[in-house]
């Protein structure tokens, strides 16, 4: 893991929807799927971002505040600064994989799906969001050869309802080895419960308020109240962001 900043130039930006952009940077990043980086824009700030692609190195930007707005204004050749990769990512475990992405939580799942497809593993991706426009990267997952199911709160794409609905349905129909997910805390809490009921191994990528990103300041602790299987004092930036729960020791 790297704790200092390194300059990277923007290669391309691609607008996905009104609030979301895909930014590719020069070169690749030596990272595991699910690891993250801190992005610094001098005089503006520093925030954590998932790695949405390892080679080329890409991040997904959703405009939620001044920092992400500024990132979206970048164009080809502009510099940004990267600290990382940081934390611990996903590990491919078993052969039958179900990936669950809530909103922009689909970003770190994409390199995982690509790594699994490179090993010719079957991957089912369940994506959920408020509406059709907020379903992100569906075509990228499909292009990688994953089967994709979608749920939206308003029913404007896929099934109407929460993504957990289609996950439950998939678990009835197919036996999976491990569930992998990233998304809002509420979704992850619900998925941890579902995995508990199904006695299914899981790897959940948690989001938390990050300050130092280096495992020292204690800002990004994820409470055991979210998932009782989490160890005491678990830090999203250092121990995570991916928490892996296996019912039996690793095969």
């Amino acid at each position, binding site marked *: 893991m790297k704790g200092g*900043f390194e300059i990277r130039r923007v290669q391309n930006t691609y607008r996905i929807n009104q609030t979301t952009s895909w930014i590719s940077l020069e070169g690749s990043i030596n990272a595991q799927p699910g690891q993250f980086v801190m992005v*610094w824009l001098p005089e503006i700030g*520093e925030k954590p971002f998932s790695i949405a692609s390892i080679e080329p190195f890409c991040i997904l930007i959703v405009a939620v505040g001044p920092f992400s707005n500024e990132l979206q204004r970048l164009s080809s050749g502009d510099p940004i*600064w990267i600290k990382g990769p940081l934390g611990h990512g996903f590990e491919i475990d078993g052969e039958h994989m179900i990936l669950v992405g809530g909103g922009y939580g689909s970003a770190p799942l994409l390199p995982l799906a690509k790594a699994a497809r490179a090993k010719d593993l079957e991957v089912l991706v369940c994506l959920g969001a408020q509406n059709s426009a907020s379903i992100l990267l569906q075509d990228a997952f499909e292009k990688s050869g994953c089967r994709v199911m979608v749920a939206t709160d308003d029913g404007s794409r896929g099934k109407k309802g929460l993504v957990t609905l289609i996950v439950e349905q998939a678990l009835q129909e197919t036996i999976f080895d491990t569930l992998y997910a990233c998304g809002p805390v509420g979704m992850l809490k619900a998925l941890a419960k579902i995995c508990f009921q199904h006695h299914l191994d899981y790897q959940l990528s948690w989001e938390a308020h990050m*300050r130092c990103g280096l495992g*020292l*300041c*204690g800002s990004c602790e994820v409470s055991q109240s979210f998932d009782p299987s989490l160890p*005491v004092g678990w830090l999203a930036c250092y121990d995570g962001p991916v928490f892996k729960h296996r019912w039996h020791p690793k095969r």
Partner: protein
Amino acid sequence: MSVNLENILLNNPLVLASGVMGTSPTLLHRIALAGAGAVTAKSCGPDQRNGHPNPVMVAWEHGLINAIGLTNPGVEEEIPLLKEARKKLTPHKIPLIASIFAGTVDAYGLVTKAIVAAEPDMIEVNISCPNVQDDFGLPFAADRHSAADVTRAVKQFAGKIPITVKLAPNVPDIGRIAQAVVEAGANAITAINTMPGMIIDVDASQPVLFNSSGGISGPALKPIALHCIAEIARAVDVPIIGTGGVITGRDAIEMMMAGATAVGIGSALWYRGPEAFKLILSEMIKYLEKNKYRSVREIIGKALIK
């Protein structure tokens, strides 16, 4: 491996340094389970503070630099957190050290008056945070008179709870400052806080930290810490919590040979994770066994010229 810190028994000399892991009771519990001999909570002041905007910390070639900016919930909110932490630590017999800061001598007294309700085993008086000068002016640790004034104000309200005063390295004569705070009633000294520094990114032509300057910690700090601890050990006769750049067991031994009774651990958690406590401890034990020491207490001050 036990040591005695002003009548507080530590199972081992390693103390979680203040500011690392914040004040979350569950995080302090984790560090206790990871093998710390005692834990220090993050400094709290009279009022809630968000701290500085990001970036607040980076690693560089020889250490870390941080300017978190004393993020804390304010003393009233801090008390229930410390009580909860104590409840979790007591079964493991791990002492809890509260840490306090304030902007004026009187405010130090008031924060102390409030924090005793949490019944910490010790109160650390942070008079040396290097990255809040814009808000608080020069640290009290910069001058022996103001350092002593703060110590007296805290002592007045601390009751039976022993206090340790955390000193800054960037002073001309740290021994004299140690003398002044001990005369004012300090039961122990924590030395040192981070050293003021700056890291510049030439591509950005900017300091990396939002606050421009911050506190240097990690390996770069160790020789400075050893010098300061030795100076303090020669000047006063109270226990010292030696803090600054301890990453390995040998580093911890060096701190104790310079005169420290206990050893603060902070940046090591970036280099080695929370496992740092167990690793450092086992490396210390290996050294002590190889060199036929019967107790870790035998090495305290061993390297000081008599």
